[in-house]
């Protein structure tokens, strides 16, 4: 289990993190979302020892992440960085060795990963000669080449074309299947929704929502139910306890159910009016959840 526990960090008077906590299970893909400047990068840099937390700690398998543990973490920084004048193959071998591999296995792993990420023919090229997309692949290969136990990736999808996104997504899913916990931050929420088992939304220094996407939906304030009752008179649902009518248009009603409300009661009331052609929870997208979560804190904070 990878645990981020109560991280605090201030840069001068700017309090960036105010108790960030979340956990990622082995084999879980964790999407780390948040507005710009919310502190995602700082959180990841603390895990990698590149920034020091004022309080709190990051643990892997129950013990605080130290230098030895960090060498078993594959990391992709937000600011991409490689030696521009070093050849792709040598660079990957070098990073594999820095992460603890011996020379021969490191060279083999570099070859394998270059091949798998479609860089086989560019192994002998200097990094500066590659296109940005290919440099991005080298960056990813550098994070994966040592077969890490944990992956922490800061905006790995930014700057990739759709084919690149698919290739990267496949590579990450494969790591999850190996039992590696994967944490990545992204602004592409549709991607997070599609790939991730769990999501954490960071806003103003705290995790304001976390869990599986389904959990987030069910805990979202004001779950919405869409009911289509062609024959119903206007205001048919108003009498059901705990229900607020959001919109009503020619029998197409959107209802918001409070915490105590029973959807079966709503169904009974609907059936009482005649035909029911549609009765379903309206699933908020992650974008909506994100917007809600971020807005909520802003109100609380204000």
């Amino acid at each position, binding site marked *: 289990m990878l645990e981020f526990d109560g991280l605090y960090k201030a840069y001068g008077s700017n309090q960036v993190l105010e108790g960030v906590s979340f956990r990622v299970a082995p084999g879980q893909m964790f999407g780390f979302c948040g507005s710009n400047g919310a502190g995602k990068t700082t959180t990841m840099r603390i895990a*990698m*020892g*590149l*920034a*020091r937390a004022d309080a709190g700690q990051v643990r892997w398998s129950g013990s605080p992440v130290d*230098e*030895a543990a*960090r*060498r*078993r*973490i594959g*990391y992709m*920084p937000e*600011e*991409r*960085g*490689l*030696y*521009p*004048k*070093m050849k792709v193959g040598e660079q990957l071998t*070098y*990073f594999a*060795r*820095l*992460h*603890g*591999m*011996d020379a021969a*296995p490191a060279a083999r*792993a570099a070859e394998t990963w270059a091949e798998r990420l479609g860089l086989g023919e560019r192994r002998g090229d200097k990094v500066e000669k590659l296109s940005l997309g290919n440099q991005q692949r080298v960056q990813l290969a*550098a994070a994966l080449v*040592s*077969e890490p*136990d944990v992956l922490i990736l800061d905006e790995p999808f930014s700057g990739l074309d759709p084919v690149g996104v698919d290739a990267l997504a496949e590579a990450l899913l494969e790591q999850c299947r*190996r039992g590696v916990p994967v944490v990545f931050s992204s602004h592409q929420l549709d991607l997070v929704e599609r790939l991730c088992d769990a999501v954490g939304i960071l806003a103003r220094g705290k995790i304001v929502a976390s869990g599986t996407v389904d959990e987030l939906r069910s805990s979202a304030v004001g779950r919405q139910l869409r009911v289509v009752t062609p024959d119903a008179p206007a205001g048919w649902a108003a009498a059901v306890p705990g229900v607020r009518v959001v919109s009503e248009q020619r029998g197409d009603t959107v209802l918001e159910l409070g915490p105590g409300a029973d959807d079966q009661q709503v169904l009974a009331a609907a059936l009482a009016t005649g035909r029911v052609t549609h009765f379903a929870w309206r699933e908020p997208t992650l974008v909506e959840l994100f917007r809600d979560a971020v807005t909520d804190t802003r109100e609380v904070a204000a």
Partner: protein
Amino acid sequence: MTADVKPHSPAQLVRLVAGREVLTRVRDKGFLIGSAVLIVIIIGLLVFQVAMASGANATKIAVVGGSAPVTEALETQGEVLDTDVDVVEYDDEGAARSAVEDGDVEAALLSPGAPQPELLVETTGGQVDALVQGALQNLAFGQQLADAGVTLQSPEVDVVALDPDADADMEAAVVALVAVFVLYMLLILFGQFVAQGVVEEKSSRVVELLLATMRPWQLLAGKILGLGLLGLAQMLIIAAIGVAGALAFDVVELPGRLIGTVLTVVAWFVLGYAFYASFYAAAASLVSRQEDLGSVLGPASMILVFGFVVAVPAAQDPTGTLATVTSFIPGVSPLVMPVRQAAGAAEWWEVAVSVVLMLIAITVIVRVGGRIYSGALLRTGGRVKLREALQSQG
């Protein structure tokens, strides 16, 4: 998770970083060409020295119809006049005459055994006239005395030298100066390599990836050690070529002292490199672009240039105040002290004090510089202020 992987010790990480530095430079064409040029310059200096030495002090004399005693007498007289005499036998007068005219020889001596020998020169009044005159006089004198049955018994003069090493001291100081010049060039070159390497890692942001696997000091140590070993290797290669060349061409009088002086300079190179490499690395870590390097390397470069500028007068006046004082200043001492040592002007305790001061300075620079380096490494963008870097702890 994989069997291939085991944790590295700090020493292994330092070695990995050092290995990369060496490999990158050794494969760099610019570096190879630069090294070759430096070696060619050294060989050129040697050849120049040899040409000067042999050209200035040898007198070529053609002899027609000479004998072993004549040759011996000419060479003996040459020693008295402090010149090497090179006797060339010619078969006939015509050949000897044209040799003088062509300037192949300075003079031609015809039939030295005859009562009236003849000396052909281009113009009269040169040193060679007196030389030949004296040689033949001595020869005739000895011959006549021997004919008269007189055996010469001249007292052997006991020569006491008050400063027996003066010439050798001067020669050693010159050797030291040449060696210090090489040291100066290599300090600048490898100091720049360290600085450029630091900025390259910062500007390409690869440093963040590196620091996720190691501590800043390990990265710094690996870089400095790797480039330092390369610098030392280059210094030793140049020293070996220089010493071998000097011995082969017989440029120096005392080979033992030459080797001692060169080894002294190599030892000072190690101290000087440790000082300047740490200084340059810390300064370079404050900026993120190669273009900004000049502005931060200034102070260290000035000490280095000052040291070299002082080393030249120090070779001429190794006991002077300037040389004595500067040979104790850390950073300047690696360029001045070897010259004083070579000239025999430094007591052993002076050297010891200078080395200790240098070691203290290196310790301070490594510690403070290491902190600046760690503090500034992850701050990209503009120039990091010194105080910020020292206070920053991630």
